[in-house]
Structure formats: C-alpha cells, structure tokens
C-alpha cells in the first residue's frame, strides 16, 4: 500500500530529472531494487499506470533490477550473498556484519527524447 507514495516520489523524481536534461518524453526508467526492502514491483507498476498520466513519464515503462542481499563479517571477513535476511555470520557466528547491498531503491537512469 505504501507503494502509492513511493511511486509518486518516483514519478516526481523522474519528471524533475527529465526536465533538467530537456527530455519531454521518458521511454524507460531503470530502477534498482534491493531484495531487503518492502517494495513490490507489481504494486509500483499498478500505481505508476495512473500516476504517470499527463507527465513526462506517460509513455515510460519501468525496468526493475533486483539487488541481492550481501553481507560482510567484520570478524572473519566472510562475504557472500544471503537468501534469507538472517544477520548472523554463517561462518563464525559473529553479529557485527556489514550489509553491503540489498537496501537499495534508486533510479539508475532514464531514457527518452
């Protein structure tokens, strides 16, 4: 449900960027989405279809690319992708971990004329 307000922010951000660079019609929005966020691509697309109307995003489509959750252990330097968000080092049991990726939610690029 919170995708409504984030999609609104997405449309605003893309419109601003397009305006800044003289793009009147955006064709493609490349969006990076970490696996450890609560945003659903289907819900974003659902709201996008009506929030984009009469904006520079009207003819745009969103391309989502998912970023896996990766951790690095401060103790044993173990580094890997984790499939489930369990934040205990699988190698040494340490809890001091760095989350290298998985929390991203950003516009990588826009394409258009």
């Amino acid at each position: 449900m919170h995708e409504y307000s984030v999609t609104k922010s997405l449309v605003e951000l893309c419109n601003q960027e397009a305006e800044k660079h003289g793009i009147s019609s955006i064709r493609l929005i490349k969006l990076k989405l970490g696996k450890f966020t609560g945003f659903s691509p289907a819900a974003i697309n659902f709201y996008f279809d009506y929030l984009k109307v009469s904006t520079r995003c009207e003819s745009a489509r969103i391309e989502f690319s998912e970023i896996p959750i990766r951790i690095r252990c401060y103790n044993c330097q173990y580094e890997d992708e984790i499939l489930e968000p369990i934040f205990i080092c699988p190698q040494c049991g340490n809890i001091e971990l760095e989350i290298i990726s998985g929390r991203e939610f950003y516009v990588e690029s826009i394409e258009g004329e």
Partner: protein
Amino acid sequence: MKINVLKPVLVSNQQRAKENRKFFDKTKSLVLNIIGSPGSGKTSVIEQIVKKLKPRYKILVIEGDIKGSIDSERLSKLKVDTIQINTLTECHLDAFMTAQAIPQIKKPYDLILIENVGNLVCPAEFDIGEDYKIAILSTPEGDDKPIKYPLLFHLAKVVIINKTDLLSYLDFKIKKARKNIMDKNPKAIVFEVSAKTGQGFKELIGFLESEIKEKLGRDRKRANP
C-alpha cells in the same frame, strides 16, 4: 538520450528527515518512532511510559493516525502535550507529515514519542528524523512476526514484547520470539512488558531514562526550538 540519475527514489523524504533530525538534535530531545500492528498496544505502552516518566521529564507525544484523534484524546487525560497528525490515505508517517508537527513545538522536550500508524510494513521504510525505531510485538500476534516482517525488526533498536499477561492463554513462546528477533537483528534490545498490569516496565523505564540523559549530554543545556 540516456541520463544516469543514480538518486534514491525517497531522496526528498531523506532530505526532509535530515532537517527534522537537525531540529530534534538542536533541542536535544530523544525522539522515538514507535511502530507496531493495530491493537498491539502502542498507545497503552506510551501511556505507561508517560505515567512513569512525566514527573521527571518533559514529554511530547505525536500521534500519527489515518483518521481521528482518539489516541491523542486518550493521552491528553494524562496531561501530557500531544500533537495529532492525520495521514488520511497514507498507511505510515513520512518525514513531511512529521515536519507538520514541528511548528507546533514551542518548548524543548526531553522525550518525544511518535506513535506511527498501526502497520508492520510501510512505516519501516520511511525515516522521519527519529533517533531510532521501537517495534512493539504483542503476544496474540504470534512469535513468528519477525520472520514475516523482517525489515522492521531488523531496523528497530528496541523491541518491546507486550501483553505478557496473556502468555498462559496463547501459543506464543518468548524464547522463540527472541530467537526470531535476534535472527533479524542480533543487537536488538528486547523488553517483555504488560501495559495492562505494568509488569516489566521498570527495566524499560530505566533504559529510557539513561537514553534521555545520554541525548541531553554532559552540559545538560539545550537550545529553544
């Protein structure tokens, strides 16, 4: 034409949250973003905290609700300052809605409790300028909630397990709940309380007092808002 944007979608929320935080830091108020399901006892826990800390500290409660002001009316009975924010269609507070409360803050507070909209999903994603998030998990909801809503339990510095007075009627296992919380957030500080009986609040209140003092710092001086 292709433009590399590389900007977070929530960039404007993040900027606003930063400004809110700057304001709260100036007044050295400890600001807690309280998140939990509808009916988990967020308001009841806040009532207990207010009752116990009010004699010694200046407290403000900001109530985020989709509609109405039932919670702030409930709290004003305790003679604590409250500000109501209605989010209308939104299922969470964001930094801009929280900023609406700022012009109404006329004096420095020691503790600002922000009760978010009852929801375990959406409020977790939005920084509102708080010092940290507190998750409230009540026993009737089940000990599996941290598995189902990992982000909130990962981000919350403190998790309060509420309604421990009902444990004998439920299948909720404290040990299991703690393990599920720790998997998502091994550094979480967990308290077990019953807002109905007052059980377990001594530890929580002691913790909050030390946090208030830490925020206030050694000079114990604060600027006016």
